[in-house]
Protein backbone atom coordinates (compact mmCIF):
# COMPACT_ATOMS: atom_id res chain seq x y z
CA UNK A 1 0.00 0.00 0.00
CA UNK A 2 1.34 3.42 -0.87
CA UNK A 3 2.53 5.60 1.97
CA UNK A 4 0.46 8.46 3.30
CA UNK A 5 3.06 11.10 2.55
CA UNK A 6 3.35 10.13 -1.06
CA UNK A 7 1.76 13.34 -2.33
CA UNK A 8 3.79 15.52 0.02
CA UNK A 9 6.43 16.31 -2.55
CA UNK A 10 4.01 17.25 -5.30
CA UNK A 11 4.17 20.85 -6.48
CA UNK A 12 1.55 22.85 -4.55
CA UNK A 13 -1.58 23.55 -6.58
CA UNK A 14 -1.20 20.48 -8.76
CA UNK A 15 -4.09 18.08 -9.10
CA UNK A 16 -2.28 15.38 -7.16
CA UNK A 17 -1.45 17.77 -4.36
CA UNK A 18 -5.01 18.96 -3.86
CA UNK A 19 -6.34 15.41 -3.91
CA UNK A 20 -3.71 14.42 -1.39
CA UNK A 21 -4.66 17.38 0.77
CA UNK A 22 -8.33 16.29 0.79
CA UNK A 23 -7.29 12.80 1.83
CA UNK A 24 -4.98 14.07 4.59
CA UNK A 25 -7.62 16.39 6.01
CA UNK A 26 -10.14 13.60 6.29
CA UNK A 27 -7.69 11.32 8.04
CA UNK A 28 -6.58 14.01 10.47
CA UNK A 29 -10.20 14.77 11.32
CA UNK A 30 -11.52 11.28 11.77
CA UNK A 31 -8.41 9.57 13.00
CA UNK A 32 -7.15 12.25 15.30
CA UNK A 33 -6.12 9.92 18.13
CA UNK A 34 -4.72 7.05 16.13
CA UNK A 35 -1.16 6.03 15.55
CA UNK A 36 0.33 6.22 12.10
CA UNK A 37 0.04 2.47 11.78
CA UNK A 38 -3.64 2.37 12.78
CA UNK A 39 -4.45 5.09 10.33
CA UNK A 40 -2.79 3.22 7.54
CA UNK A 41 -4.83 0.15 8.39
CA UNK A 42 -8.15 1.98 8.73
CA UNK A 43 -8.19 4.64 6.05
CA UNK A 44 -7.68 4.73 2.31
CA UNK A 45 -4.56 6.43 1.02
CA UNK A 46 -4.62 9.08 -1.69
CA UNK A 47 -3.46 6.47 -4.20
CA UNK A 48 -6.26 4.12 -3.14
CA UNK A 49 -8.76 6.90 -3.63
CA UNK A 50 -7.46 7.56 -7.12
CA UNK A 51 -7.80 3.90 -8.00
CA UNK A 52 -11.38 3.82 -6.75
CA UNK A 53 -12.24 6.99 -8.60
CA UNK A 54 -10.89 5.50 -11.81
CA UNK A 55 -13.20 2.52 -11.25
CA UNK A 56 -16.21 4.78 -10.69
CA UNK A 57 -15.38 6.82 -13.75
CA UNK A 58 -15.75 3.65 -15.76
CA UNK A 59 -19.10 3.12 -14.08
CA UNK A 60 -20.10 6.68 -14.85
CA UNK A 61 -19.30 6.11 -18.50
CA UNK A 62 -21.35 2.94 -18.64
CA UNK A 63 -24.23 4.57 -16.80
CA UNK A 64 -24.32 7.39 -19.34
CA UNK A 65 -24.08 4.99 -22.27
CA UNK A 66 -26.94 2.84 -21.06
CA UNK A 67 -29.07 5.81 -20.09
CA UNK A 68 -32.60 5.78 -21.45
CA UNK A 69 -33.58 8.06 -23.21
CA UNK A 70 -30.10 8.31 -24.77
CA UNK A 71 -28.38 11.48 -23.60
CA UNK A 72 -26.37 13.93 -25.70
CA UNK A 73 -22.62 13.58 -25.39
CA UNK A 74 -22.27 16.97 -23.80
CA UNK A 75 -24.19 15.72 -20.77
CA UNK A 76 -21.69 12.92 -20.33
CA UNK A 77 -18.80 15.32 -20.69
CA UNK A 78 -20.23 17.74 -18.18
CA UNK A 79 -20.98 14.96 -15.70
CA UNK A 80 -17.38 13.75 -15.92
CA UNK A 81 -16.20 17.28 -15.34
CA UNK A 82 -18.32 17.67 -12.24
CA UNK A 83 -17.24 14.30 -10.88
CA UNK A 84 -13.57 15.08 -11.28
CA UNK A 85 -13.86 18.54 -9.86
CA UNK A 86 -15.85 17.36 -6.88
CA UNK A 87 -13.16 14.91 -5.81
CA UNK A 88 -10.36 17.43 -6.22
CA UNK A 89 -11.26 18.85 -2.84
CA UNK A 90 -13.25 16.07 -1.23
CA UNK A 91 -12.20 12.69 0.00
CA UNK A 92 -13.80 9.52 -1.31
CA UNK A 93 -14.23 8.52 2.31
CA UNK A 94 -16.30 11.62 3.01
CA UNK A 95 -18.77 11.25 0.16
CA UNK A 96 -19.24 7.90 -1.51
CA UNK A 97 -18.54 8.09 -5.26
CA UNK A 98 -21.56 5.97 -6.20
CA UNK A 99 -23.82 8.68 -4.76
CA UNK A 100 -21.93 11.64 -6.17
CA UNK A 101 -21.79 9.94 -9.56
CA UNK A 102 -25.53 9.92 -10.14
CA UNK A 103 -25.88 13.39 -8.70
CA UNK A 104 -23.31 14.65 -11.20
CA UNK A 105 -25.21 13.12 -14.09
CA UNK A 106 -28.50 14.54 -12.82
CA UNK A 107 -27.07 18.03 -12.48
CA UNK A 108 -25.38 17.76 -15.88
CA UNK A 109 -28.74 16.87 -17.44
CA UNK A 110 -30.17 20.06 -16.07
CA UNK A 111 -27.25 22.29 -16.99
CA UNK A 112 -26.99 20.91 -20.53
CA UNK A 113 -30.74 21.38 -21.01
CA UNK A 114 -31.43 17.69 -21.40
CA UNK A 115 -34.86 17.89 -19.87
CA UNK A 116 -35.64 14.90 -17.69
CA UNK A 117 -37.65 14.47 -14.51
CA UNK A 118 -36.28 12.84 -11.39
CA UNK A 119 -38.67 9.89 -11.82
CA UNK A 120 -37.46 9.31 -15.35
CA UNK A 121 -33.93 9.65 -14.13
CA UNK A 122 -34.09 7.13 -11.29
CA UNK A 123 -35.80 4.67 -13.64
CA UNK A 124 -32.27 4.09 -14.95
CA UNK A 125 -31.01 3.08 -11.52
CA UNK A 126 -31.21 -0.42 -10.15
CA UNK A 127 -32.43 -0.90 -6.61
CA UNK A 128 -34.48 1.32 -4.35
CA UNK A 129 -35.58 4.20 -6.58
CA UNK A 130 -37.08 6.31 -3.86
CA UNK A 131 -33.93 6.19 -1.83
CA UNK A 132 -31.92 7.01 -4.93
CA UNK A 133 -33.96 10.10 -5.68
CA UNK A 134 -33.60 11.18 -2.05
CA UNK A 135 -29.85 10.79 -2.26
CA UNK A 136 -29.64 12.71 -5.52
CA UNK A 137 -31.79 15.59 -4.38
CA UNK A 138 -30.04 15.81 -1.03
CA UNK A 139 -26.62 15.89 -2.67
CA UNK A 140 -27.45 18.24 -5.51
CA UNK A 141 -26.93 21.46 -3.60
CA UNK A 142 -23.81 20.12 -1.94
CA UNK A 143 -22.39 19.28 -5.35
CA UNK A 144 -23.15 22.73 -6.71
CA UNK A 145 -21.52 24.29 -3.70
CA UNK A 146 -18.42 22.16 -4.07
CA UNK A 147 -18.24 23.25 -7.71
CA UNK A 148 -18.31 26.85 -6.48
CA UNK A 149 -21.42 27.21 -8.61
CA UNK A 150 -19.32 27.29 -11.76
CA UNK A 151 -21.71 25.09 -13.64
CA UNK A 152 -20.91 26.01 -17.22
CA UNK A 153 -18.60 23.45 -18.77
CA UNK A 154 -16.94 23.85 -22.14
CA UNK A 155 -16.90 20.43 -23.69
CA UNK A 156 -14.59 19.62 -26.60
CA UNK A 157 -17.49 18.65 -28.88
CA UNK A 158 -18.18 22.08 -30.32
CA UNK A 159 -14.48 22.80 -30.96
CA UNK A 160 -14.37 19.48 -32.85
CA UNK A 161 -17.25 20.70 -34.96
CA UNK A 162 -15.49 24.03 -35.57
CA UNK A 163 -12.19 22.39 -36.48
CA UNK A 164 -13.93 20.08 -38.93
CA UNK A 165 -15.60 23.08 -40.58
CA UNK A 166 -12.20 24.75 -40.78
CA UNK A 167 -10.57 21.63 -42.24
CA UNK A 168 -13.32 21.27 -44.82
CA UNK A 169 -12.89 24.91 -45.78
CA UNK A 170 -9.14 25.36 -45.75
CA UNK A 171 -7.56 21.91 -46.06
CA UNK A 172 -7.55 19.65 -49.12
CA UNK A 173 -8.16 16.53 -46.98
CA UNK A 174 -10.42 14.05 -48.72
CA UNK A 175 -13.68 13.23 -46.92
CA UNK A 176 -12.98 14.51 -43.41
CA UNK A 177 -15.97 12.57 -42.11
CA UNK A 178 -13.65 9.56 -42.00
CA UNK A 179 -12.04 11.16 -38.96
CA UNK A 180 -15.16 10.84 -36.82
CA UNK A 181 -14.65 7.31 -35.33
CA UNK A 182 -11.08 8.11 -34.28
CA UNK A 183 -12.17 11.39 -32.73
CA UNK A 184 -14.94 9.78 -30.73
CA UNK A 185 -12.62 7.09 -29.47
CA UNK A 186 -10.05 9.55 -28.17
CA UNK A 187 -12.59 11.90 -26.65
CA UNK A 188 -14.30 9.06 -24.79
CA UNK A 189 -10.98 8.00 -23.40
CA UNK A 190 -9.86 11.50 -22.36
CA UNK A 191 -12.71 11.55 -19.90
CA UNK A 192 -11.01 8.72 -18.03
CA UNK A 193 -7.97 10.96 -17.56
CA UNK A 194 -7.57 14.37 -15.99
CA UNK A 195 -6.90 15.99 -19.35
CA UNK A 196 -10.10 18.02 -19.28
CA UNK A 197 -8.92 19.70 -16.08
CA UNK A 198 -5.54 20.59 -17.52
CA UNK A 199 -6.02 21.54 -21.17
CA UNK A 200 -8.29 23.86 -23.10
CA UNK A 201 -11.20 22.09 -24.80
CA UNK A 202 -9.89 23.25 -28.17
CA UNK A 203 -6.53 21.62 -27.47
CA UNK A 204 -8.21 18.34 -26.60
CA UNK A 205 -10.26 18.63 -29.77
CA UNK A 206 -7.14 19.21 -31.85
CA UNK A 207 -5.44 16.22 -30.22
CA UNK A 208 -8.46 14.09 -31.06
CA UNK A 209 -8.43 15.20 -34.67
CA UNK A 210 -4.70 14.58 -35.06
CA UNK A 211 -5.11 11.18 -33.42
CA UNK A 212 -7.93 10.29 -35.80
CA UNK A 213 -5.88 11.49 -38.79
CA UNK A 214 -2.94 9.31 -37.85
CA UNK A 215 -5.31 6.36 -37.54
CA UNK A 216 -6.43 6.66 -41.15
CA UNK A 217 -2.85 7.37 -42.29
CA UNK A 218 -3.44 11.00 -43.14
CA UNK A 219 -1.14 13.82 -42.16
CA UNK A 220 -2.60 17.08 -40.96
CA UNK A 221 0.69 18.56 -39.67
CA UNK A 222 0.95 21.09 -42.47
CA UNK A 223 -2.63 22.16 -41.85
CA UNK A 224 -1.86 22.83 -38.19
CA UNK A 225 1.47 24.60 -38.71
CA UNK A 226 0.65 26.56 -41.84
CA UNK A 227 -3.06 27.16 -41.99
CA UNK A 228 -4.23 27.09 -38.41
CA UNK A 229 -1.33 28.89 -36.79
CA UNK A 230 0.24 30.79 -39.63
CA UNK A 231 3.57 32.51 -39.36
CA UNK A 232 2.54 34.77 -36.50
CA UNK A 233 2.52 32.16 -33.78
CA UNK A 234 5.50 29.94 -34.45
CA UNK A 235 6.84 30.47 -30.93
CA UNK A 236 3.70 29.02 -29.40
CA UNK A 237 3.64 25.99 -31.65
CA UNK A 238 6.03 23.81 -29.59
CA UNK A 239 3.82 24.28 -26.56
CA UNK A 240 0.76 23.10 -28.45
CA UNK A 241 2.61 20.12 -29.92
CA UNK A 242 3.71 19.18 -26.43
CA UNK A 243 0.13 19.47 -25.14
CA UNK A 244 -1.23 17.31 -27.93
CA UNK A 245 1.51 14.74 -27.41
CA UNK A 246 0.84 14.59 -23.66
CA UNK A 247 -2.92 14.23 -24.12
CA UNK A 248 -2.41 11.36 -26.54
CA UNK A 249 0.18 9.63 -24.39
CA UNK A 250 -1.91 9.81 -21.22
CA UNK A 251 -4.92 8.51 -23.06
CA UNK A 252 -2.82 5.59 -24.28
CA UNK A 253 -1.63 4.77 -20.80
CA UNK A 254 -5.08 4.27 -19.30
CA UNK A 255 -5.45 0.94 -17.63
CA UNK A 256 -8.43 -0.55 -15.84
CA UNK A 257 -7.81 -1.07 -12.15
CA UNK A 258 -7.44 -4.73 -11.11
CA UNK A 259 -10.77 -6.12 -9.98
CA UNK A 260 -9.50 -7.89 -6.86
CA UNK A 261 -7.88 -4.75 -5.55
CA UNK A 262 -11.00 -2.71 -6.18
CA UNK A 263 -13.08 -5.17 -4.22
CA UNK A 264 -10.73 -4.94 -1.25
CA UNK A 265 -10.74 -1.18 -1.33
CA UNK A 266 -14.55 -1.08 -1.48
CA UNK A 267 -14.71 -3.20 1.63
CA UNK A 268 -12.26 -0.94 3.39
CA UNK A 269 -14.23 2.11 2.30
CA UNK A 270 -17.47 0.74 3.74
CA UNK A 271 -15.77 0.61 7.12
CA UNK A 272 -13.97 3.93 7.12
CA UNK A 273 -16.42 6.16 5.28
CA UNK A 274 -17.90 9.15 7.05
CA UNK A 275 -21.07 7.78 8.59
CA UNK A 276 -22.65 11.22 8.74
CA UNK A 277 -22.96 11.15 4.97
CA UNK A 278 -24.03 7.52 4.67
CA UNK A 279 -27.76 7.36 3.96
CA UNK A 280 -27.98 3.90 5.55
CA UNK A 281 -26.38 4.90 8.84
CA UNK A 282 -28.19 5.74 12.04
CA UNK A 283 -26.36 9.04 12.36
CA UNK A 284 -27.52 10.18 8.92
CA UNK A 285 -31.15 9.26 9.58
CA UNK A 286 -30.98 10.99 12.92
CA UNK A 287 -29.62 14.11 11.31
CA UNK A 288 -32.35 14.18 8.68
CA UNK A 289 -34.97 13.73 11.38
CA UNK A 290 -33.42 16.56 13.38
CA UNK A 291 -33.62 18.81 10.37
CA UNK A 292 -37.31 18.02 9.98
CA UNK A 293 -38.00 18.60 13.67
CA UNK A 294 -36.07 21.80 13.55
CA UNK A 295 -38.72 23.38 11.38
CA UNK A 296 -41.37 22.72 14.02
CA UNK A 297 -39.24 23.86 16.88
CA UNK A 298 -37.94 26.73 14.93
CA UNK A 299 -40.72 29.15 15.75
CA UNK A 300 -40.61 28.41 19.48
CA UNK A 301 -36.88 28.79 19.55
CA UNK A 302 -36.98 32.01 17.62
CA UNK A 303 -39.51 33.41 20.02
CA UNK A 304 -37.36 32.49 23.02
CA UNK A 305 -34.31 33.98 21.39
CA UNK A 306 -36.03 37.23 20.50
CA UNK A 307 -37.40 37.54 24.01
CA UNK A 308 -33.97 36.96 25.48
CA UNK A 309 -32.38 39.50 23.17
CA UNK A 310 -34.96 42.07 24.00
CA UNK A 311 -34.48 41.57 27.71
CA UNK A 312 -30.72 41.97 27.45
CA UNK A 313 -31.11 45.04 25.29
CA UNK A 314 -33.47 46.65 27.73
CA UNK A 315 -31.10 45.93 30.52
CA UNK A 316 -28.28 47.51 28.60
CA UNK A 317 -30.36 50.59 27.82
CA UNK A 318 -31.37 50.96 31.44
CA UNK A 319 -27.77 50.60 32.48
CA UNK A 320 -26.79 53.42 30.19
CA UNK A 321 -29.52 55.74 31.44
CA UNK A 322 -28.47 55.00 34.99
CA UNK A 323 -24.94 56.10 34.14
CA UNK A 324 -26.18 59.21 32.41
CA UNK A 325 -28.70 60.34 34.98
CA UNK A 326 -26.39 62.07 37.50
CA UNK A 327 -25.07 64.45 34.87
CA UNK A 328 -28.53 65.12 33.44
Amino acid at each position, binding site marked *: MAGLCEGGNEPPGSLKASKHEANRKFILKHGANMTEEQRERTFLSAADERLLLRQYELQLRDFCRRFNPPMPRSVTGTAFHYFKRFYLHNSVMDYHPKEILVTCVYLACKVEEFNISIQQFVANIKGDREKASDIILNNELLLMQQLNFHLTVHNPYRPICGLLIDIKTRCPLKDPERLQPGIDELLDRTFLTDACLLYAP*SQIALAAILHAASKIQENLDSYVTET*LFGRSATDILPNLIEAVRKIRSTVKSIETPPREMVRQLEKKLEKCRNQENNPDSQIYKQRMQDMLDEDDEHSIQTYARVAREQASQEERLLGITRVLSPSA
Partner: protein
Amino acid sequence: MDEQACPRCKTTKYRNPSLKLMVNICGHALCESCVDLLFLKGSGSCPECNVPLRRSNFRVQLFEDSMVEKEVDIRKRILRDFNKKEEDFATLREYNDYLEDIESIIFNLTNNIDVIATNKKIDQYKRDNRELILKNKSKIGREEMELEELLEEEKQQEEIKKKELVKLELEEKKKKIREKEALIDELMFSNADAKNIMETFASNVQAAKEEAKAVPVIRATQFSTGIKFSHQRQQTFMPVPKIEEGPLYEYEAPKQPTDGPVPPTWQDLQEKGYVNYVEPERSEQRAGGYRANISCMRSLQEALAGLYHVSDRTELVS
Protein backbone atom coordinates in the same frame (compact mmCIF):
# COMPACT_ATOMS: atom_id res chain seq x y z
CA MET B 1 -60.34 78.23 25.65
CA ASP B 2 -58.86 81.18 27.45
CA GLU B 3 -60.74 84.38 27.59
CA GLN B 4 -59.20 86.93 25.27
CA ALA B 5 -58.13 90.00 27.12
CA CYS B 6 -56.22 93.17 26.41
CA PRO B 7 -53.03 93.10 28.44
CA ARG B 8 -53.18 96.87 29.05
CA CYS B 9 -56.76 97.73 29.99
CA LYS B 10 -57.71 94.17 31.02
CA THR B 11 -60.94 94.30 29.03
CA THR B 12 -62.16 90.81 28.13
CA LYS B 13 -64.27 89.46 25.34
CA TYR B 14 -66.92 88.72 27.93
CA ARG B 15 -67.23 92.29 29.09
CA ASN B 16 -66.89 93.84 25.69
CA PRO B 17 -68.20 91.52 22.94
CA SER B 18 -66.90 93.83 20.23
CA LEU B 19 -63.35 93.60 21.55
CA LYS B 20 -60.82 93.47 18.75
CA LEU B 21 -57.23 92.61 19.54
CA MET B 22 -54.56 94.10 17.31
CA VAL B 23 -50.98 93.02 16.86
CA ASN B 24 -47.88 94.65 15.49
CA ILE B 25 -44.52 93.26 14.38
CA CYS B 26 -43.36 92.57 17.95
CA GLY B 27 -46.19 90.14 18.48
CA HIS B 28 -47.74 91.75 21.54
CA ALA B 29 -51.48 92.29 21.45
CA LEU B 30 -53.46 95.44 22.31
CA CYS B 31 -57.16 96.11 22.09
CA GLU B 32 -58.47 98.53 19.50
CA SER B 33 -59.26 101.28 21.96
CA CYS B 34 -55.82 101.07 23.57
CA VAL B 35 -54.23 101.32 20.12
CA ASP B 36 -56.33 104.42 19.44
CA LEU B 37 -55.27 105.87 22.77
CA LEU B 38 -51.56 105.06 22.66
CA PHE B 39 -50.87 105.74 19.02
CA LEU B 40 -52.66 109.01 18.64
CA LYS B 41 -49.56 110.50 17.08
CA GLY B 42 -49.12 107.65 14.60
CA SER B 43 -46.14 106.09 16.32
CA GLY B 44 -45.09 104.96 19.77
CA SER B 45 -43.56 102.08 21.63
CA CYS B 46 -45.01 98.77 22.65
CA PRO B 47 -46.07 98.94 26.29
CA GLU B 48 -44.62 95.48 26.91
CA CYS B 49 -41.30 95.43 25.10
CA ASN B 50 -40.71 99.06 24.23
CA VAL B 51 -40.09 98.33 20.59
CA PRO B 52 -40.94 101.39 18.48
CA LEU B 53 -44.06 100.68 16.43
CA ARG B 54 -46.13 102.46 13.83
CA ARG B 55 -49.83 102.63 14.02
CA SER B 56 -50.29 101.73 10.39
CA ASN B 57 -48.64 98.37 11.03
CA PHE B 58 -51.33 97.28 13.46
CA ARG B 59 -53.71 94.66 12.19
CA VAL B 60 -56.43 92.46 13.61
CA GLN B 61 -55.18 89.42 15.44
CA LEU B 62 -56.27 86.32 13.53
CA PHE B 63 -54.75 83.71 15.76
CA GLU B 64 -55.34 83.42 19.42
CA ASP B 65 -51.68 83.00 20.19
CA SER B 66 -49.90 86.23 19.50
CA MET B 67 -46.64 84.32 18.95
CA VAL B 68 -48.20 82.77 15.89
CA GLU B 69 -49.07 86.22 14.63
CA LYS B 70 -45.53 87.33 15.11
CA GLU B 71 -44.25 84.30 13.31
CA VAL B 72 -46.61 84.88 10.40
CA ASP B 73 -45.31 88.42 10.14
CA ILE B 74 -41.70 87.36 10.19
CA ARG B 75 -42.33 84.55 7.77
CA LYS B 76 -43.91 86.91 5.29
CA ARG B 77 -40.93 89.23 5.52
CA ILE B 78 -38.34 86.47 5.21
CA LEU B 79 -40.03 84.69 2.35
CA ARG B 80 -40.02 87.88 0.35
CA ASP B 81 -36.25 87.47 0.07
CA PHE B 82 -35.84 83.75 0.42
CA ASN B 83 -37.81 83.03 -2.67
CA LYS B 84 -35.83 80.28 -4.36
CA LYS B 85 -37.78 77.49 -6.00
CA GLU B 86 -37.09 73.81 -6.18
CA GLU B 87 -35.91 74.21 -9.76
CA ASP B 88 -33.04 76.41 -8.54
CA PHE B 89 -31.38 73.48 -6.81
CA ALA B 90 -29.53 70.58 -8.28
CA THR B 91 -30.73 68.00 -5.80
CA LEU B 92 -33.72 67.56 -3.57
CA ARG B 93 -31.35 67.32 -0.64
CA GLU B 94 -30.02 70.84 -1.22
CA TYR B 95 -33.52 72.20 -1.53
CA ASN B 96 -34.51 70.58 1.72
CA ASP B 97 -31.45 72.02 3.44
CA TYR B 98 -32.43 75.44 2.17
CA LEU B 99 -35.97 75.05 3.53
CA GLU B 100 -34.50 73.93 6.82
CA ASP B 101 -32.35 77.06 6.91
CA ILE B 102 -35.37 79.27 6.37
CA GLU B 103 -37.25 77.56 9.15
CA SER B 104 -34.40 77.95 11.60
CA ILE B 105 -34.04 81.66 10.73
CA ILE B 106 -37.75 82.22 11.30
CA PHE B 107 -37.65 80.27 14.51
CA ASN B 108 -34.67 82.27 15.78
CA LEU B 109 -36.30 85.59 15.01
CA THR B 110 -39.62 84.56 16.52
CA ASN B 111 -38.05 83.38 19.73
CA ASN B 112 -35.38 86.08 19.93
CA ILE B 113 -32.49 83.68 19.68
CA ASP B 114 -29.27 85.05 18.19
CA VAL B 115 -31.14 87.90 16.55
CA ILE B 116 -28.02 89.80 15.54
CA ALA B 117 -26.32 86.80 14.01
CA THR B 118 -29.47 85.77 12.21
CA ASN B 119 -29.99 89.23 10.78
CA LYS B 120 -26.41 89.19 9.58
CA LYS B 121 -27.09 85.89 7.92
CA ILE B 122 -30.12 87.30 6.14
CA ASP B 123 -28.14 90.31 4.94
CA GLN B 124 -25.39 88.04 3.72
CA TYR B 125 -27.92 85.92 1.85
CA LYS B 126 -29.50 88.99 0.27
CA ARG B 127 -26.14 90.22 -0.91
CA ASP B 128 -25.13 86.83 -2.30
CA ASN B 129 -28.35 86.15 -4.13
CA ARG B 130 -29.48 89.59 -5.21
CA GLU B 131 -29.97 88.67 -8.86
CA LEU B 132 -31.79 85.45 -8.19
CA ILE B 133 -34.09 87.14 -5.69
CA LEU B 134 -35.01 89.81 -8.23
CA LYS B 135 -35.55 87.24 -10.93
CA ASN B 136 -37.77 85.10 -8.75
CA LYS B 137 -39.71 88.15 -7.58
CA SER B 138 -40.53 89.08 -11.14
CA LYS B 139 -41.42 85.48 -11.84
CA ILE B 140 -43.82 85.41 -8.94
CA GLY B 141 -45.25 88.72 -10.14
CA ARG B 142 -45.84 87.23 -13.53
CA GLU B 143 -47.54 84.18 -12.09
CA GLU B 144 -49.80 86.34 -10.01
CA MET B 145 -50.66 88.43 -13.05
CA GLU B 146 -51.64 85.37 -14.97
CA LEU B 147 -53.77 84.15 -12.14
CA GLU B 148 -55.51 87.51 -11.94
CA GLU B 149 -56.15 87.48 -15.64
CA LEU B 150 -57.75 84.10 -15.33
CA LEU B 151 -59.94 85.25 -12.50
CA GLU B 152 -60.99 88.30 -14.49
CA GLU B 153 -61.90 86.21 -17.48
CA GLU B 154 -63.90 83.89 -15.29
CA LYS B 155 -65.84 86.79 -13.88
CA GLN B 156 -66.70 88.13 -17.31
CA GLN B 157 -67.93 84.77 -18.48
CA GLU B 158 -70.11 84.46 -15.45
CA GLU B 159 -71.72 87.80 -16.11
CA ILE B 160 -72.45 86.98 -19.72
CA LYS B 161 -74.06 83.73 -18.64
CA LYS B 162 -76.21 85.50 -16.09
CA LYS B 163 -77.43 88.04 -18.65
CA GLU B 164 -78.30 85.31 -21.07
CA LEU B 165 -80.26 83.46 -18.44
CA VAL B 166 -82.28 86.54 -17.58
CA LYS B 167 -82.94 87.17 -21.26
CA LEU B 168 -84.11 83.62 -21.81
CA GLU B 169 -86.45 83.75 -18.89
CA LEU B 170 -87.99 86.96 -20.13
CA GLU B 171 -88.56 85.53 -23.56
CA GLU B 172 -90.11 82.44 -22.10
CA LYS B 173 -92.56 84.50 -20.12
CA LYS B 174 -93.49 86.62 -23.12
CA LYS B 175 -93.99 83.56 -25.23
CA LYS B 176 -96.30 81.97 -22.72
CA ILE B 177 -98.39 85.09 -22.47
CA ARG B 178 -98.59 85.34 -26.21
CA GLU B 179 -99.71 81.75 -26.51
CA LYS B 180 -102.33 82.18 -23.89
CA GLU B 181 -103.70 85.24 -25.63
CA ALA B 182 -103.76 83.45 -28.96
CA LEU B 183 -105.63 80.57 -27.41
CA ILE B 184 -108.21 82.84 -25.86
CA ASP B 185 -108.63 84.77 -29.14
CA GLU B 186 -109.08 81.54 -31.00
CA LEU B 187 -111.67 80.33 -28.52
CA MET B 188 -113.51 83.62 -28.65
CA PHE B 189 -113.74 84.13 -32.41
CA SER B 190 -113.43 80.73 -34.07
CA ASN B 191 -116.38 78.58 -35.02
CA ALA B 192 -114.54 75.34 -34.53
CA ASP B 193 -115.03 72.93 -31.67
CA ALA B 194 -113.48 74.21 -28.45
CA LYS B 195 -112.04 70.78 -27.67
CA ASN B 196 -110.29 70.61 -31.05
CA ILE B 197 -108.73 74.01 -30.59
CA MET B 198 -107.38 73.02 -27.18
CA GLU B 199 -105.82 69.89 -28.61
CA THR B 200 -104.08 71.63 -31.53
CA PHE B 201 -102.62 74.19 -29.14
CA ALA B 202 -101.42 71.53 -26.75
CA SER B 203 -99.68 69.60 -29.56
CA ASN B 204 -98.12 72.86 -30.82
CA VAL B 205 -96.64 73.56 -27.42
CA GLN B 206 -95.34 70.00 -27.26
CA ALA B 207 -93.65 70.36 -30.67
CA ALA B 208 -92.03 73.64 -29.66
CA LYS B 209 -90.64 72.05 -26.52
CA GLU B 210 -89.13 69.16 -28.47
CA GLU B 211 -87.56 71.57 -30.92
CA ALA B 212 -85.89 73.41 -28.07
CA LYS B 213 -84.54 70.14 -26.76
CA ALA B 214 -83.11 69.20 -30.18
CA VAL B 215 -80.70 72.13 -30.11
CA PRO B 216 -77.31 70.40 -30.05
CA VAL B 217 -75.34 70.62 -26.90
CA ILE B 218 -72.25 72.71 -27.41
CA ARG B 219 -69.16 70.66 -26.66
CA ALA B 220 -67.44 71.87 -23.54
CA THR B 221 -64.09 73.45 -24.27
CA GLN B 222 -63.70 74.93 -20.86
CA PHE B 223 -63.86 73.93 -17.26
CA SER B 224 -66.85 75.17 -15.34
CA THR B 225 -64.56 77.89 -14.00
CA GLY B 226 -64.10 79.16 -17.55
CA ILE B 227 -60.49 78.13 -17.89
CA LYS B 228 -59.80 76.66 -21.29
CA PHE B 229 -58.54 73.05 -21.45
CA SER B 230 -55.67 73.78 -23.76
CA HIS B 231 -54.58 76.75 -21.75
CA GLN B 232 -54.47 74.62 -18.66
CA ARG B 233 -52.44 71.92 -20.34
CA GLN B 234 -49.71 74.31 -21.38
CA GLN B 235 -49.18 75.36 -17.83
CA THR B 236 -48.84 71.97 -16.21
CA PHE B 237 -45.33 71.19 -17.34
CA MET B 238 -43.34 69.48 -14.64
CA PRO B 239 -40.19 71.39 -13.75
CA VAL B 240 -37.30 69.77 -15.54
CA PRO B 241 -34.82 68.64 -12.91
CA LYS B 242 -31.33 69.95 -13.33
CA ILE B 243 -28.84 67.21 -14.06
CA GLU B 244 -25.13 67.64 -13.66
CA GLU B 245 -23.71 66.60 -17.00
CA GLY B 246 -20.53 64.62 -16.84
CA PRO B 247 -18.25 63.90 -19.79
CA LEU B 248 -20.01 62.33 -22.78
CA TYR B 249 -20.22 58.53 -22.89
CA GLU B 250 -17.98 56.98 -25.43
CA TYR B 251 -18.61 53.50 -26.73
CA GLU B 252 -15.76 51.08 -26.60
CA ALA B 253 -16.13 47.75 -28.30
CA PRO B 254 -15.60 44.98 -25.75
CA LYS B 255 -12.34 43.10 -26.09
CA GLN B 256 -12.46 39.35 -26.15
CA PRO B 257 -9.16 37.72 -25.39
CA THR B 258 -9.26 34.37 -27.17
CA ASP B 259 -5.82 33.01 -26.32
CA GLY B 260 -5.71 31.45 -29.75
CA PRO B 261 -5.56 32.19 -33.48
CA VAL B 262 -7.84 34.97 -34.69
CA PRO B 263 -11.19 33.51 -35.77
CA PRO B 264 -12.62 34.49 -39.17
CA THR B 265 -14.96 37.49 -39.37
CA TRP B 266 -18.66 37.33 -40.18
CA GLN B 267 -17.81 38.36 -43.71
CA ASP B 268 -15.23 35.58 -44.08
CA LEU B 269 -17.87 33.01 -43.18
CA GLN B 270 -19.70 33.77 -46.40
CA GLU B 271 -16.81 34.67 -48.65
CA LYS B 272 -14.49 31.81 -47.78
CA GLY B 273 -17.31 29.32 -47.66
CA TYR B 274 -17.29 28.23 -44.02
CA VAL B 275 -21.07 28.38 -43.94
CA ASN B 276 -21.36 25.73 -46.65
CA TYR B 277 -20.35 23.07 -44.16
CA VAL B 278 -23.08 23.67 -41.59
CA GLU B 279 -26.69 22.73 -41.94
CA PRO B 280 -28.63 25.68 -43.41
CA GLU B 281 -31.31 27.05 -41.12
CA ARG B 282 -34.94 26.12 -41.65
CA SER B 283 -37.56 28.79 -42.15
CA GLU B 284 -39.10 28.25 -38.68
CA GLN B 285 -35.66 28.70 -37.11
CA ARG B 286 -35.23 31.87 -39.08
CA ALA B 287 -38.35 33.26 -37.40
CA GLY B 288 -36.60 33.15 -34.05
CA GLY B 289 -33.61 35.03 -35.42
CA TYR B 290 -31.35 32.01 -35.90
CA ARG B 291 -29.00 31.89 -38.83
CA ALA B 292 -26.69 29.08 -39.79
CA ASN B 293 -23.70 31.41 -39.61
CA ILE B 294 -24.30 31.96 -35.90
CA SER B 295 -23.65 28.34 -35.01
CA CYS B 296 -20.85 28.21 -37.55
CA MET B 297 -19.16 31.21 -35.96
CA ARG B 298 -19.62 29.82 -32.48
CA SER B 299 -18.04 26.50 -33.39
CA LEU B 300 -15.09 28.19 -35.07
CA GLN B 301 -14.55 30.55 -32.15
CA GLU B 302 -14.62 27.71 -29.67
CA ALA B 303 -12.28 25.66 -31.85
CA LEU B 304 -9.68 28.42 -31.87
CA ALA B 305 -10.07 29.89 -28.40
CA GLY B 306 -7.57 28.55 -25.91
CA LEU B 307 -5.27 26.85 -28.40
CA TYR B 308 -2.38 28.95 -27.09
CA HIS B 309 -3.22 28.02 -23.52
CA VAL B 310 -0.18 27.01 -21.52
CA SER B 311 -0.85 24.79 -18.59
CA ASP B 312 1.51 25.42 -15.68
CA ARG B 313 0.63 22.06 -14.25
CA THR B 314 1.76 20.09 -17.20
CA GLU B 315 1.83 16.75 -15.47
CA LEU B 316 -1.22 14.55 -15.73
CA VAL B 317 -2.35 12.54 -12.80
CA SER B 318 -2.37 8.94 -13.84
